[in-house]
């Protein structure tokens, strides 16, 4: 089982999110997700400024094997995207919880993420495959 940073929360569709000190939220895909997908080759990220609603498909990660949509677990405006991924998508394979982040949102004031899992709860889900 992989080591998961304790400050992350997870969705059942294998995204993670991390609340940064400035109140923005960073989103990526889990180690389990990157391992299932295999080598990542392309990443499509949302435009900066785009307003996303909860559960909206807003990014695509594509591996040698398959393409997969990424859904935002929280509503908000996109404030940053990880442009390094355009040239080096393998960062997601190497550092899914650090250099492989996908995008950052400023949550809308009323935004609430519901049904998120803690790191330990997610590990249980991961172990079940």
């Amino acid at each position, binding site marked *: 089982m992989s080591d998961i940073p304790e400050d992350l929360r997870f969705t059942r569709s294998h995204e993670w999110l991390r609340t940064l000190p400035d109140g923005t939220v960073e989103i990526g895909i889990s180690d389990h997700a990157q*391992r299932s997908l*295999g*080598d990542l*080759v*392309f990443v*499509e990220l949302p435009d900066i400024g785009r307003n996303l609603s909860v559960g909206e498909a807003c990014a*695509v990660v*594509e591996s*040698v*094997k*398959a*393409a997969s949509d990424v859904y935002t677990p929280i509503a908000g405006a996109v404030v940053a995207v990880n442009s390094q991924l355009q040239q080096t998508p*393998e960062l997601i*394979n190497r550092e899914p919880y650090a250099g492989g982040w996908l995008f950052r949102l400023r949550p809308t004031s009323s935004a609430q993420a519901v049904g998120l899992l803690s790191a330990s709860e997610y590990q249980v889900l991961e172990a079940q495959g």
Partner: protein
Amino acid sequence: MWEVWEYGAHCYASCTRLELCQVCAAGVAAVAFGLRGRCSRHRPREWPDRAEAERRLGRRTCLFDLHVALGARMVDFGGWDMPLAYGSQLEEHHAVRRAAGVFDVSHMGIIDLRGARSGEFLRGLLANDVARLRVPGKALYSCMLNERGGVIDDLIVYYLTDEHYRLVVNAGTRDSDLKWIAQHTQGLGVEWLERRELAMLAVQGPQARELSAALMARDAAQAALALQPFFGAQIGQWFVARTGYTGEDGFELMVPAGEAVALWQRLNAAGVRSCGLGARDTLRLEAGMNLYGNDMDEHTHPLESALAWTVAFEPADRHFIGREALEALRARGVTRKLVGLVLDERAVLRSHQRVLVPGVGEGEVTSGTFSPTLARSIGFARVPANTGAAVQVEVRARTLPARVVRVPFVRHGEPLVPIDP
């Protein structure tokens, strides 16, 4: 209730060949699918039906435990538990293009045909003509067709002597191939034998031959290195062939199953990287080689599968199964063709995506992937015969332009299609 073992015995009731039970060494009728041999007392459990039995058991090659120990991600491939990748599939791919990699291809079927009329039999069975093989050891790629011209399988046949040929067939079709062969050998005095006691390792890449030969005794190494492309030879206990499915030089080694694990480990120690089916697929696609079941099958024929070059219509008096159907198709005009595609957009072609040919019609992607060498997506598509150089492909709700190109895309490590950086 079906019993796995019984199924084999029923299915191949005409088979007179015996194998020994692995547990008590009692003789039992051989089955043609890869479940491990056990006599009635030691046979596996009962399952509701054959499909269930195969699903539960999964066929394993003699290298299965090693793959798992090496950390491979195992997947089902035609009923076999096979390694997809041991780590990064892209790195495995590059290892074969730049140095050397080893693949377990023991799931493929090795079938020996013996008898004075073996050549005559194969001339009637295969769409390519084994009479073209005049030098012992020479290999030939061919389709095996049904009466409608549909492709039952594609295979390699080695001409060893006038009375001995060796076929290497696909894993997913080996049972049905054997049944087909058994059916057609009747009355010809041609004997067939599946060499299940052999494992097959494909060692591929620019350094593959030298690194493999370094593990052989001196005389054997000399003989192996002297092999010309597309030749094979029995060298001691090993059958060494200068063939492959990657577009690189290399060997396919057929060795006694008991030697396979040690051979694999020695290859690894010599710097040959373990490679899985994932890399095998991207390598063969770059090399412009068809995959049975994706690019052609029983419902498609060679003339619409970029395999017309493998059908020997000459001499005109050679009858082979499927000939009449292909001649009729040729006379009417073949309406579809299989072409290579390059996608310059940041997206990946996948099987079954719709291909639009403006003003002409539609087609379908049969195989698609990301090409690690070209750093963009490539694929094959079956399209109308008069398709030109440009098509569009529906990729995940977008319609993207794709270029029709001549295959192979890559050969011996070098890109063969023009690519804008």
